[in-house]
């Protein structure tokens, strides 16, 4: 691009001349013009108007005013230097430059016009041609598209805006890491001919030995297999503990409301009932395989208050089959803890007071057996099957005794063959000792006395004086005996008209005992008196009676019509506080037991079920005065009221 510069010739003014008239002719035109302008202007000014003087105008005289001043325009730059000197290397001195550049640039503008014929111009032309050609290929196809494209490309600054932005770049980081090198170890050895030889010899020996072992390996494999089985069993048995806990948890969840009732429920309506109380049914314990059997015996465990034993068999003479001994715990109402099968029906059982894992069982076929709960086997540790002296008839009651002088455990059994036998656990045997034979009743003729025995149905030992015991018989008599007298009984009570199903000493009062029988009666006796102190008639056969462990005046009885009767002599001497049917119709109740700690009772019926019931507060009033004393007071009251003729001398 070439620059367009404006050349402006500058006008230079010459020095003014005094003799302005002489040169006036030459420059007159100019001067005149200037002066003329001035004078004309001045004259005009002066002619047109009055003279107006600006304040800063020079005051000149007329002569000075008439002076002619010459001004000359020259084409030379007044700013250009006039005496430029340059050093000349040729001559070695400064020399003045004659021609000084007079150009002064007032304005510069760079333009963008390119000459067609120049290189750049030709290049641009070529580019333009390419663009045109590119578009030209499409032309035959679609002129419209091209037109549209062109229209699209036409973006103006008002509608379209280009924006650019930079996103945040994450700062790069350097991370370095070194892994642990693989572990190394040192090893050293020597490779000699003799070393090699020695090694080979050893290897040979080893191989020979292994061949011999190979034959024995079959046996080893079998052992391994059996070991594996054992291990599997152990695994399962280890699981068993855990599974047990889980089972209990599940049971607790299922029977949660029952468990809550058991612990906390107190029947508030007892306040409105006056003296009466109720029994709240809790869990029902039943076992599938015991469906055909009836409950014959119940016993609570003294050490573990939630564990109780159930003996299952049959009361019917004609329906004798196998029997079972089950242990339930309140923590698991759905399945028994321990299950023992017996060859014949269980008639009675007793759990040792101190060693709560020893259980004595009396069977229908006259055998007695002792089970050890600690042992995993389900066979009794002692069995009187083979030994002589076993009862010839059903064993009706067993009771553990205190250890004898040799500190052997022993228990006493009474059976339907009329004998009281003491069994001692000596090492692996049961050794029997006959204690006493039940007296035969008078109605049987003498020659048959040896043959027909008196069936003993119930047995109980005194709590404090454990040599003293009571036996109830089928004929309705109760005999009091002592372990020290083996020939005869101390006392005989005519208790009932029919079978005496239970006799029990009162746990608090030393002289009082209770009996019940099939003649619908429950009778309370003082051992010093021939006739009963209290008599209660319940509408059906009474199968079992039990004293409460918390009060000397409370007892409960069960009858064959499925009812439980609870009495408290302190509150009501004539009536039961509670008579409640606890099982479905036509089910007979056979056993009842109070829990030693909790206010619940369990009743067993002839379907093989055991039902647990909670006593309402009215039924478990603890007397404020001493326990035995209450009963004494009660009895004294009665004695004063009814003087009896047959009062025996107290022993």
């Amino acid at each position: 691009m070439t620059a367009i510069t404006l050349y402006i010739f500058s006008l230079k003014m010459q020095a003014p001349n005094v003799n302005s008239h002489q040169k006036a002719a030459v420059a007159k035109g100019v001067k005149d013009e200037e002066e003329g302008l001035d004078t004309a202007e001045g004259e005009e000014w002066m002619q047109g108007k009055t003279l107006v003087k600006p304040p800063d105008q020079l005051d000149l005289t007329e002569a000075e005013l008439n002076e002619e001043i010459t001004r000359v325009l020259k084409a030379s730059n007044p700013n250009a230097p006039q005496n430029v000197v340059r050093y000349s290397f040729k001559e070695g001195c400064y020399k003045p430059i004659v021609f000084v550049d007079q150009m002064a640039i007032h304005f510069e503008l760079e333009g963008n016009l390119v000459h067609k014929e120049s290189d750049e111009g030709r290049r641009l032309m070529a580019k333009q041609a390419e663009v045109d050609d590119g578009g030209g290929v499409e032309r035959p196809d679609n002129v419209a598209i091209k037109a549209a494209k062109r229209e699209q490309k036409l973006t103006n600054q008002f509608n379209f805006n280009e924006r650019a932005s930079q996103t945040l770049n994450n700062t790069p980081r350097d991370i370095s890491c070194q892994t642990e090198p693989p572990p190394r170890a040192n090893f050293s050895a020597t490779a000699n001919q003799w070393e090699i030889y020695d090694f080979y010899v050893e290897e040979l020996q080893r191989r020979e030995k292994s061949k011999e072992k190979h034959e024995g390996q079959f046996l080893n494999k079998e052992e391994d297999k059996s070991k594996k089985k054992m291990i599997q069993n152990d695994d399962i048995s280890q699981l068993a503990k855990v599974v047990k806990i889980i089972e209990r948890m599940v049971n607790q969840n299922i029977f949660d409301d029952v468990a809550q009732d058991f612990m906390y429920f107190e029947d508030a309506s007892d306040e409105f009932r006056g003296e009466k109380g109720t029994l709240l049914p809790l869990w029902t314990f039943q076992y599938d395989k015991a469906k055909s059997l009836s409950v014959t015996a119940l016993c609570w465990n003294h050490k573990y208050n939630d564990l109780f034993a159930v003996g299952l068999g049959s009361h019917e003479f004609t329906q004798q089959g196998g029997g079972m001994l089950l242990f339930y715990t309140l923590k698991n109402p759905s399945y028994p803890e321990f299950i023992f099968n017996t060859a014949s029906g269980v008639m009675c059982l007793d759990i040792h007071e101190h060693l709560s894992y020893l259980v004595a069982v009396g069977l229908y076929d006259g055998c007695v057996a002792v089970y050890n709960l600690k042992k995993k086997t389900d066979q009794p540790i002692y069995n009187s099957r083979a030994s002589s002296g076993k009862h010839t008839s059903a064993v009706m009651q067993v009771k553990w005794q205190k250890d004898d002088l040799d500190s052997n455990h022993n228990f006493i059994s009474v059976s339907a063959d009329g004998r009281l036998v003491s069994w001692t656990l000596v090492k692996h045997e049961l050794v029997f000792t006959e204690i006493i034979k039940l007296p035969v009743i008078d109605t049987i003729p003498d020659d048959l006395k040896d043959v027909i025995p008196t069936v003993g149905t119930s047995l109980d030992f005194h709590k404090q004086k454990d040599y003293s015991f009571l036996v109830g018989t089928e004929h309705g008599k109760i005999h009091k005996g002592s372990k020290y007298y083996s020939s005869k009984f101390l006392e005989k009570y005519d208790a009932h008209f029919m079978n005496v199903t239970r006799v029990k000493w009162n746990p608090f009062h030393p002289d009082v005992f209770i009996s019940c029988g099939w003649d619908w009666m429950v009778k309370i006796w003082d051992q010093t008196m021939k006739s009963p102190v209290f008599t209660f008639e319940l509408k059906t056969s009474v199968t079992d009676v039990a004293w409460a462990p918390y009060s000397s005046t409370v007892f409960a009885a069960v009858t064959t019509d499925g009812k439980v009767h609870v009495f408290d002599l302190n509150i009501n001497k004539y009536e039961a506080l509670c008579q409640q049917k606890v099982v479905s119709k036509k089910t007979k109740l056979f056993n009842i037991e109070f829990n030693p700690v909790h206010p619940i009772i369990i009743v067993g019926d002839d379907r093989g079920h055991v039902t647990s019931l909670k006593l309402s507060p009215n039924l478990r009033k603890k007397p404020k005065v001493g326990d035995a004393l209450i009963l004494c007071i009660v009895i004294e009251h009665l004695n004063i009221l009814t003087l009896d003729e047959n009062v025996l001398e107290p022993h």
Partner: protein
Amino acid sequence: GADDTEEKTQTIDPKHIFPPQHTDMPEEMRVETMELCVTACEKFATNNESAAKMIKESMDKKFGSSWHVVIGEGFGFEITHEVKNLLYMFFGGGLAVCVWKCS
């Protein structure tokens, strides 16, 4: 001397027993390595160097870099090896082969 011992080993046993004197390799690796050593030694029965070379290159390819192999009849050694990468065995009644990995 050496002849007697060789005879003994021949009469009692064929030379086809190659028990490892000392090894801490895993089972598979050991079996493979031993087979490789036996193959190499049988192939290059006269030339220990070639046998060693063959073993070393195969081991490098299979199990990673920096294996060292020594084959000979009489030598002592003290080496540092990566754990579970050492095999020291005898071959043919008279050769000892030591193979280890260490970078």
